[in-house]
């Protein structure tokens, strides 16, 4: 019985939250990696683009709520997301047309494009804060829990409860659907294949008649979809605050690089690597050991490897280690 309790404890506090958080990071990391693989620059506006998409989602959610539309037990934001995506893609294409295109056409070095993306970051951040303000916002409605801790305890008769928030399930399901659709698109369709070819060798791709304008446009569209959904899922699960989104850029970068930048599958796994290591290393295992060990060996301290204050530092340290020993990431990067 104690063993089952210990396992449920880990499931509740580590596995489920890390899986949800990892999915949110994974979407962002694929976004970074796509931009890096095809447009060839590190996009420092990542976090703020996601916050822009989330902001539009929130605005649509409010609008639908005022109309009285709801999905019952599911959050209203789910209907708002498709509309937000349309907006977001428009914004991305607009930015590309007025900002990034010039540097791409004149073949500027990647560093310059990264600098330009910092300009975009400032502008997007300002737009978001001017429109919706810098404060913390929750836009979740519907049923909060799929399984409540108390219900779980009653059902199984265990001491430990397992609470599963519906947002966590939605996050994981949506991520899986989206990512499999994306991989199917990249691997099976002609456009996806031409994107991979373009990312692999630009000149050769151009020689074989691939239209770079189309590739770039599709990249931005996919990026817009990923940014909006990733941002909205994070906002649903936790809450929406522009500053947090800006900060999230850092673990997202870490995930993309750990997985091998330019490699979407690596980025997908990288998100989970970062999320799990953050939570595993900062969780206090005291209760876990109390269940497992005999009474005489029970630990007095919290058995915490690092204090939760260092949550971000963990992912960055992993990144630094990966950069040092395997700069191309766990999976070889640079090719879609």
């Amino acid at each position: 019985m104690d063993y089952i309790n210990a396992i449920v404890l880990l499931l509740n506090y580590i596995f489920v939250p890390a899986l949800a958080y990892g999915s949110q990071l994974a979407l962002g990391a694929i976004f970074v990696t796509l931009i890096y693989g095809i447009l060839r620059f590190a996009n420092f506006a990542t976090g703020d683009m996601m916050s822009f998409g989330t902001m539009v989602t929130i605005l649509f959610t409010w609008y639908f709520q005022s109309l009285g539309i709801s999905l019952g037990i599911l959050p209203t934001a789910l209907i708002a997301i498709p509309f937000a995506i349309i907006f977001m893609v428009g914004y991305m294409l607009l930015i590309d047309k007025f900002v990034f295109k010039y540097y791409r056409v004149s073949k500027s070095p990647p560093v310059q494009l990264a600098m330009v993306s910092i300009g975009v970051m400032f502008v997007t951040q300002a737009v978001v804060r001017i429109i919706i303000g810098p404060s913390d916002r929750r836009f979740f409605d519907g049923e909060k829990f799929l399984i409540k801790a108390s219900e779980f305890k009653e059902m199984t008769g265990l001491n430990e409860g397992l609470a599963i928030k519906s947002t966590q399930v939605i996050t994981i399901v949506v991520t899986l659907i989206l990512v499999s659709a994306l991989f199917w698109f990249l691997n099976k369709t002609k456009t996806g294949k031409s994107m991979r070819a373009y990312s692999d060798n630009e000149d050769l791709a151009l020689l074989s008649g691939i239209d770079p304008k189309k590739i770039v446009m599709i990249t931005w569209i996919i990026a817009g979809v990923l940014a909006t959904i990733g941002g909205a899922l994070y906002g649903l699960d936790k809450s929406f605050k522009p500053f947090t989104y800006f900060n999230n850029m850092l673990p997202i970068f870490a995930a993309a690089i750990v997985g091998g930048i330019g490699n979407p599958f690596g980025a997908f796994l990288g998100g989970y690597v970062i999320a799990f290591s953050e939570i595993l290393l900062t969780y206090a295992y005291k209760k876990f050991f109390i269940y497992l060990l005999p009474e005489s060996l029970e630990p007095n301290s919290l058995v915490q490897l690092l204090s939760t204050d260092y949550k971000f530092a963990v992912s960055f340290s992993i990144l630094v280690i990966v950069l040092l020993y395997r700069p191309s990431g766990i999976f070889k990067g640079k090719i879609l």
Partner: protein
Amino acid sequence: MRKNLNVIAAYTIMMGLIILVGIFQSWNIALSIFNLCLISAVMTMGANIQWGYAGLINFGIMGYTALGGLAAVLISVDPVQEAWSAGGSNILLALLLIIGMVLAIRYMLKKYEKSKIRTYIIATIIIAGIIIIRFVSEPGIEAIEEVDPAKTGFLGGFGLPIIFSWIVGALFAGGLAFVIGKVALGLRADYLAIATLLISEIVIAIIKHEDWLTRGVKNVIGLKRPAPYEVNLQQTDWFINLVEKFNLSKLNLITDLTERQAALNQFVIEGSSIFVKLCYSGLFLIVVIILLILTQKALYSPWGRMMRAIRDNEEAANAMGKNVVKQHLLIFVLGSAIVGIAGAMLVTQDGLFTPGSYRPMRYTFLIWVMVIVGGSGNNFGAILGGFVVWFLWIESAPIGLYLVNLTTAGLADTHFLKVHLIESVPYFRFLMMGIGLLLIMRYRPKGILPEKIEIK
């Protein structure tokens, strides 16, 4: 003279703007803008050495700034004796253990060939070391943090004049840069940018949460000043006489004696804070001028030419026998050290150290905007960038408010759009910075004052 006309013109306009602020808003505001402009100028000089001279991207400016600030705390605060006796020995032991660990790793790296076993042994040393250090330091840290937590709860510093911290801050930042440079400089440009950005976040996390060293988010306040205190000034005779002399014409208009005294008091209070700010301006100006002379000399020296050669064509420079790796490391350390000075200056001016206020937006990206806008590779440009961008950063709120009022003049004061826009005026600064950066990068990619290399 003619050649430098644009430099002189740009600086004259900038000074004119600050003086206009002094006339229309207040001299106090103008001087605090000017002081922060000077500090920003030091930071941009540091970033410019790295980016402009050598083409190295360093997004870790925030980390070095914070280390400079930490130096200010460690140098100027009086040591907390009880804390030292409570846990000092544990901390010192932990420090020795860290040094021992590093030496052991170095020994392993030097002595043995690269192999799997070596990697595993090093990993074991690190993990075992961390566990032992935690066991040793934990009781000490707890004991230290329990010593009067509302006031101290940390080890304190050395109780030296805070001015020394400017040098120590440079050493701290340079030391960190040495470690980072050793580790990360081999990376490609954009990887280096991300790596330095993340490492600086780690530094901030440590400063924020190691309360025994820095008091963490509880902040350290009331640092000693290198300048006189306003309260003391207001009671000194020579200062009151000085203020009286300055404002004689205004004071003479008042005939009533008590009123005249009240007016004089007001002038003294205002004057004292202006005087203190002027003291800081003087100190900062000295630093800026010294650094400017040194960096200019370096830029036109054979060393500077070599740096440009490395920047423009690494392989060719390497083929000419220049040690690219070593020079990159050197310049990384030098630039970061200058940023460290700025960090210490900033804390010196504020008189307080608030680890929570170090955010990448303000201390990394804004500095980069300054460098790009001012003109990378040109020291005068970088300093000007610091001035222009900081000025706009502060003054964009009033400008934004003015613009909002202008564009929504037709709307009623209670109209929701107008109220909303007026509330969000502080964020116009981000908009301004972003658009400014984008415009400069597009139409004047070399900055306001572009790099100009003349052979002397």
